[in-house]
């Protein structure tokens, strides 16, 4: 490999970087910087985490004692539906994708994410979807049929009004957003890796983001079809799910869980990726079993599509079919087990410093392990039919999602806080937040296992004193407030550190991967010089070179597997059109709730916007044929 790779491009006047307006709302709305968009995704998702968390506290207050009167059933059902919908669609998926938008380009040494304008469009769609949901909730039109919206309850007959339509259209918003980001992350990973960073050298977090992006591509179509059918049933009188007219109520559940189960892995695989990154920098060891961990990610992604039926064991499906899904659900513990073993082997004898980020990793270990073990229990039909739809399951999936995604996320935010903000996150409050969050979490959710076994179903707004559920519910509510306090400490710590934390240099932890090679926070895309790397841990081992000669508005495109230079392309220019298209799309999605004419009217306007967005420009393509680039680079 050459230490320096210099693509030659023909200068063209139109290709000269135009001075960009940095300040002002217009520039803000037109940005193409993946760091800016990524930060917005993460920040917005954390706002929704707080909102969803407040809803959870309301629910815990209502359930703290029998026959409490904080809310009636009508309000409670809106609150628990919005809590679930918010946490899944407006917090967990976007925050993981936002971290991907911010860090995947940095970690693969790309100047920017592929299709930054598409990602920016996705961001606004996501924001508008979230605003739409909470506006609906505050105007007493919050969805109230559960985040799973089972038919016929969610159908036109049993859910008149607009509440379930709000849910169905929120799904449309999040589908669009998630797909936009996923496509961009896949292309960034495949085509914008810096030379030398072949596919077997990319960091585990990038693998996790890549794998989950593919999962989004395969899972989302199922829910797109499902929510469209539901919207059609509700708005134009089709009967996909109406048994009285030959429809099928279970069809919805199959389509929903074909998406809904992989969704869980879409949320926590990036979390596991962050665990790998934190362990790597904490131990200063290369990862034990890079290949097994990558294969575990891929295996999890594939298996995840083969076990949706374990959400439906209580619907009375044939035994043989159920056994197949039991097998698949149990087997998915193997790849996760492999990751655990590899992490422990990496840590073995390395004497890592237990700072905030590593403390969150330890919290993850204990918590996610319990969630995985109860998951194995849920795979067994005879156990499942007892605990399905009870608080046992509520406990289980909070162990998996908070343990497997939120703890690593808080660790990851601590780990990457210097790169995101240029400041170090305070250690003392960091450790305090970890202790409070961990204690509060287990106090909240461990008793719920017991409540479920003792007969407490999910999604109930109240219970009678004679059930004997009062004590553990009270404990759970107290725990929820401790957990909330821990989160508050985390946010206070972040705010204080942001204002007055120690300045961070480029690589405060001595990390191995390329995001630590750029300054904290990173330079703008146009100012970055792509590196030429020589190993899987480029900042630790191997020679580092630089790719020189790239114009500020050019990107290097490399080959998928070996990351050899392929050609040079023009970078996207800042544009207001993603924002405008997002406004029009949001308008169309909301209008469709009220009139079918929303669709053709909105589609027409969006078509015009897209034409403006993609209108031909006088930019000369920065082509450079593959042969020429290779020749210059000295690649045979």
């Amino acid at each position, binding site marked *: 490999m050459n230490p320096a790779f210099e693509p030659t491009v023909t200068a063209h006047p139109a290709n000269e970087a135009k001075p960009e307006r940095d300040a002002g709302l217009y520039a803000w709305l037109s940005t193409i910087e993946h760091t800016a968009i990524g930060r917005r995704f993460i920040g917005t998702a954390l706002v929704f985490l707080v909102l969803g968390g407040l809803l959870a506290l309301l629910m815990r207050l209502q359930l703290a004692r029998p026959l409490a009167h904080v809310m009636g059933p009508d309000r409670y059902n809106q609150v628990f539906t919005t809590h679930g919908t918010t946490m899944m669609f407006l917090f967990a998926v976007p925050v993981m994708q936002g971290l991907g938008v911010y860090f995947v380009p940095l970690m693969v040494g790309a100047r920017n994410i592929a299709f930054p304008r598409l990602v920016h469009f996705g961001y606004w769609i996501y924001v508008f979807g979230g605003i739409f949901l909470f506006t609906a909730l505050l105007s007493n039109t919050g969805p109230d049929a559960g985040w799973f919206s089972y038919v016929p309850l969610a159908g036109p007959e049993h859910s008149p009004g607009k509440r379930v339509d709000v849910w169905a259209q929120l799904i449309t918003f999040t589908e669009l957003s998630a797909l936009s980001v996923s496509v961009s992350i896949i292309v960034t990973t495949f085509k914008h890796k810096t030379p030398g960073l072949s596919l077997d050298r990319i960091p585990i977090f990038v693998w996790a983001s890549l794998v989950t992006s593919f999962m989004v591509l395969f899972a989302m179509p199922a829910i797109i079809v499902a929510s469209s059918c539901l919207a059609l049933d509700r708005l134009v009188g089709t009967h996909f799910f109406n048994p009285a007219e030959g429809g099928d109520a279970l069809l919805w559940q199959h389509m929903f869980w074909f998406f809904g189960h992989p969704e869980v892995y879409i949320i926590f695989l990036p979390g596991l990726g962050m665990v790998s990154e934190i362990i790597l920098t904490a131990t200063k*060891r290369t990862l034990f079993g890079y290949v097994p961990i990558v294969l575990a990610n891929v295996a999890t992604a594939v298996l995840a599509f083969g076990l949706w039926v374990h959400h439906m064991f209580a619907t*009375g499906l044939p035994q043989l079919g159920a056994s197949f899904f039991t097998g698949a659900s149990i087997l998915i513990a193997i790849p996760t087990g492999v990751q655990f073993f590899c992490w422990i082997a990496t840590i073995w004898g390395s*004497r890592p410093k237990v700072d905030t980020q590593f403390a969150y990793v330890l919290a993850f270990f204990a918590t996610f392990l319990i969630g995985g*073990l109860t998951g194995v229990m849920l795979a067994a039909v005879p156990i499942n039919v007892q*605990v399905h739809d009870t608080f046992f399951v509520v406990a289980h999936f909070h162990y998996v999602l908070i343990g497997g995604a939120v703890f690593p996320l808080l660790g990851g935010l601590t780990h990457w806080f210097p790169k995101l903000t240029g400041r170090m996150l305070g250690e003392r409050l960091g450790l305090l937040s970890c202790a409070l969050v961990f204690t509060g979490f287990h106090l909240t959710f461990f008793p719920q296992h017991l409540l479920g076994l003792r007969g407490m179903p999910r999604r109930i707004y109240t219970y009678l004193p004679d059930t004997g559920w009062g004590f553990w519910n009270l404990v759970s509510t107290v725990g929820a407030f401790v957990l909330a306090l821990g989160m508050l400490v985390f946010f206070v710590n972040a705010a204080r550190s942001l204002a007055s934390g120690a300045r961070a240099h480029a690589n405060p932890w001595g990390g191995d991967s390329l995001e630590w090679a750029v300054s904290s926070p990173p330079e703008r895309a146009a100012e970055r010089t792509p590196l030429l790397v020589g190993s899987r841990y480029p900042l630790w081992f191997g020679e580092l070179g630089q790719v020189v000669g790239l114009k500020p508005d050019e990107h290097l495109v490399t080959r998928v597997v070996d990351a050899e230079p392929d050609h040079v392309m023009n970078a996207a220019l800042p544009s207001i059109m993603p924002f405008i298209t997002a406004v029009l799309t949001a308008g169309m999605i909301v209008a469709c709730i009220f009139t079918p004419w929303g669709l053709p009217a909105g589609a027409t306007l969006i078509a015009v916007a897209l034409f403006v967005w993609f209108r031909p420009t006088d930019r000369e393509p920065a082509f450079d044929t593959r042969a020429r680039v290779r020749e210059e680079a000295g690649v045979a």
Partner: protein
Amino acid sequence: MGPVGAHSALEPAGVQARHSLQLFDAYLYVAVLVFFLVIAALGFALGKRSDPAHEKREPPIEAKRGKRGVVAWATLATVFTLIGLLIASVSTGHSMALMPSAEPVEVEVVGHKWWWEFRYPVGGVATRFSTAYELHVPVGRPVQLKLMALDVIHSFWVPSLSGKLDAIPGKHRTLLLRADRAGSYEGQCAEFCGAEHANMRFLVVAESPAKFAAWRDHQLGSPAPPTDALRQRGLEVFMSSRCSSCHAIGGTDAFGTVGPNLTHVASRRRLAMGTLENTPEHLSSWISDPQTAKPGVQMPSTPLPPEDRRALLAYLEGLQ
């Protein structure tokens, strides 16, 4: 509330729930063992001093390859443990499916928003009867429950007797269970079904075959027409108010099927979706204002003049 029955998957009183609990216990032991093994391994990994060969070198360094064998064995052990658990699950499922089911008591269970109806189809049309909130079964005999729903999906669950099974509109599902101990067992709808899902309770009364047969014979009959003036007035009130458009009472012209059949309402232990003890006070307040007790319930408030209400109550209390 009426007498409280067992309401826990941890206190099985029937063969199906016992199978589930045995398997759960097995899984729990394995889970606890695995949890402590993994946490212990993590603890050792953290506490272990780095070995001399590594100490000489400044980090970052290559991960040790020496643990490959251990990781491979741990993975293999995981695979075999999981296969063992899978076999245990499938064989338990098999035993549950093969529960002896000769001469079962057949009951049609219908989930409504938000109450459970139990129909006993004894022989022909003339010998059917319908009751609510209370499922009676004989101890030791298999019971075959045919689950149905007419509005939305509900899920029939009596933790002490059996796992749950959904009642799905447009589908027929059969749940086989057996109570092995006399007693009353709490049940509750487990699938979210709307506003009053939380209060969709019922009671399973398992009694000796003789008592069960006596109960069934009693339910088949109709209560004698009221003889005293007050209760006759009560019947009139029932027939002339909106009560009779939703409820049925055997031996009268009330044939409503929207709400529970009230033929033997006074013999039941509970009222109001199975959430209130069946006392005259509860019945009175339930009739006059169901929306306050259970917001969202489909029964409307029925304001009556005091004397009419007293007559209606007297009549209903007589429906033993």
